[in-house]
């Protein structure tokens, strides 16, 4: 039967199991929205396309399913750019669909025309400009396949208006055929053997686990590996939740704002097992002195990550879960480990801590949120100091419970992402930990939250500064606070203007009660926490220093 391109698109989305789309309409996507009118798909209208992209991203991170966002041509498409780049850096499966001007007007600077495939070349796993309606079904199939397999990432499909309005026969395109796209799931047996041998020979192993553990669904295997080796597990920011944060072998986060004991462990280990990580600069700092005495095993699905930043002794390219299983099945559990005991001592000796002084401290806000929620909520954060405190003072015990912008570090991600998380997990509580700077970036999505009754609880860690930048200015620029002081609206009144609930907490003793009340209120809640203004995130590795040379 002949269908319009838009109808074919909708059929294809349904065939891929899509149930929710985050989007914003416009002229060039008009035929697509018209097809959505009849479709059994939930459409969430955001208030800015950036919100749609981040919400789709949050949805994907929480559910493991690809997030889908839809926008019109021109500004609609360019407004997705930050969200796409964000998903790209954090390997989030996302399919972004954009309208485009009719093919006859392409390349003529037409109204609302932007070369979005050109623009997004550097930040998509792949992208398509569909010029023939007959290619549409196959393109959508490929896009979802590419977005979700191997190392996941965003794929963009740009659809000119005449293509979505054009007619074609819809046929299921069948399995994907992409000669240029290979995924290696099974690791090379020889590398597995080498890895096993290196592990057996090691005395001081450290597991360095990243987002790949979560993407690869390998958290159980990771736990087994750690327990068999009695090896401490340090996670990256992206890896939080991939290993239970309250497990004795957890040493928390490593790197620039890692725990001292995690960084010491890495510096003194004789074997570093990198699992789904990429040796990012925020982790390694001075790269020559990162794990200087260690044999390095690097397990990752993306061969291009191996050897990109550091030399690797034993590369294991393959699916992380599959690779870990192959390794684990050949290991003997250890019963004793002096190394583990040493780590335990460090944990006692160098806890992450802060000084109480009667003023409201961000750390205690996060701690109390943890105490109230007992780790049983999904936490989304924005970017900055509050993000690091949320990494330090909240314990994530399950994968996909900590949703944060790691690689791109996108202020403004948190709140729309939290909405996406809430859509994906309607029966769970979602807490967005944000800052006053970050929250302002996409505060318009309060309307979306109220419109769809997504009862996200937003905790604004409000210090009246772009705090992380201010901290750098304090430490490295002689306290010259150039343009980092920032004002904002009265967040309580702002929430109320949207019909959400607003609260303000100024004392430590009030945090718990406010949080409990917020969780009882069946609608979005914004809690403003005016905190000690010049509190710093510590410990901290100054730029260019090895990770065991920490401040604080």
């Amino acid at each position, binding site marked *: 039967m002949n269908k319009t391109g838009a109808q074919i698109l909708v059929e294809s989305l349904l065939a891929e199991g899509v149930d929710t789309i985050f989007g914003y309409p416009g002229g060039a996507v008009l035929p697509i929205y018209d097809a959505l009118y009849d479709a059994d798909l939930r459409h969430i209208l955001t208030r800015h396309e950036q919100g749609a992209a981040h919400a789709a991203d949050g949805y994907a991170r929480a559910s493991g399913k690809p997030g889908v966002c839809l926008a019109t041509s021109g500004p609609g498409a360019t407004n997705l750019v930050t969200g796409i780049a964000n998903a790209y850096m954090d390997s989030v499966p996302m399919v972004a669909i954009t309208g485009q001007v009719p093919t006859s007007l392409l390349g003529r600077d037409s109204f609302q025309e932007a070369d979005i*495939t*050109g623009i997004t*070349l*550097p930040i998509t*796993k*792949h992208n398509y*400009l569909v010029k023939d309606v007959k290619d549409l079904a196959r393109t959508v199939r490929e896009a979802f396949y*590419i977005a979700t397999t191997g190392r996941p990432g965003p794929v963009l499909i740009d659809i000119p208006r005449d293509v979505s309005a054009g007619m074609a026969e819809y046929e299921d395109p069948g399995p994907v055929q*992409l*000669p*240029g*796209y*290979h995924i290696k799931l099974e690791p090379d047996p020889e590398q597995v053997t080498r890895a096993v041998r290196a592990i057996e020979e090691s005395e001081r192993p450290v597991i360095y686990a990243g987002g790949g553990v979560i993407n690869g669904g390998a958290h159980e295997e990771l736990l087994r590996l750690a327990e068999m080796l009695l090896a401490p597990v340090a996670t990256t920011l992206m890896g939080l939740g991939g290993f239970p944060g309250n497990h004795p072998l957890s040493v928390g986060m490593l790197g620039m704002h890692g725990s001292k004991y995690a960084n010491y462990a890495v510096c003194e280990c004789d074997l570093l097992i990198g699992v789904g990580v990429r040796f990012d600069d925020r982790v390694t700092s001075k790269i020559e002195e990162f794990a200087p005495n260690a044999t390095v095993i690097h397990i990752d699905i*993306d*061969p*291009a990550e*191996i*050897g*990109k930043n550091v030399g690797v002794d034993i590369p294991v390219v393959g699916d992380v879960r599959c690779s870990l299983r192959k390794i684990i099945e050949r290991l003997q559990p250890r019963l004793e480990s002096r190394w583990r005991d040493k780590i335990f001592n460090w944990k006692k000796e160098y806890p992450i801590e802060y000084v109480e002084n009667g003023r409201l401290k961000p750390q205690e806000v996060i701690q109390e949120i943890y105490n109230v929620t007992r780790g049983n909520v999904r936490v989304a954060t924005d970017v900055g100091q509050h993000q690091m405190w949320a990494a330090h003072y909240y314990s994530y015990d399950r994968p996909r419970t900590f949703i944060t912008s790691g690689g791109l570090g996108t202020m403004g991600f948190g709140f729309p992402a939290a909405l996406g998380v809430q859509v994906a997990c309607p029966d769970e509580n979602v807490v967005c930990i944000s800052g006053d700077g970050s929250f302002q970036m996409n505060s318009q999505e309060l309307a979306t939250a109220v419109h769809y009754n997504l009862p996200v609880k937003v905790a604004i860690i409000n210090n009246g500064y772009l705090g992380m930048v201010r901290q750098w200015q304090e430490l490295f620029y002689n306290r010259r606070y150039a343009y980092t002081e920032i004002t904002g609206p009265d967040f309580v009144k702002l929430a109320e203007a949207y019909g959400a609930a607003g609260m303000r907490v100024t004392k430590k003793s009030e945090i718990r009660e406010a949080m409990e009340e917020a969780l009882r209120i069946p609608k979005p809640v914004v809690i403003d926490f005016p905190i000690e203004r010049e509190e710093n995130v510590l410990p901290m590795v100054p730029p260019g220093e090895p990770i065991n040379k920490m401040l604080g």
Partner: protein
Amino acid sequence: MRHTLAVLVENNPGVLARVAGLFSRRGFNIDSLAVGRTENPDVSRMTIVVEGDARVLEQVTKQLHKLVDVIKINDITADEYVDRELVLIKVNVDPAQRGEVMQIADVFRARIVDLGRKTLTLECTGNDGKINAFEESLRPYGIKELVRTGKIAMLRGSKYTGLQDNGARDE
């Protein structure tokens, strides 16, 4: 060190932009790049000469592989291969010197493709070394214009860089 990569890509619009963009954003240096279609109209072949040590090369190859439109990459530097480049050179020649220049052309098996009142345009193919030598020998006459295609290359013997296995022997 310089490496010669034979890269098979889907003959899709924008594929050149994808490859060029990758080199620029990853900070890889391209010495030359030549592209054209192959025996299969759906597939184009790029010959990329790139400067860098083994680690750079490894990254170049792996990052190129991540482009969905890139089908196959073969670093043929260490193999036996034939490489050719074409150059067009326009030289200033007054009639008296014409003979000399034509002799040089002979030595390099170059051809004269155009004749002006005071100029000669020559075409020469060969590998890097030959083309450079040809250019040097014409330099004294005054080169008005010079254009090179960039290198293309092919493995010798029965090895080939085809859609099937890398360097497979067709036996």
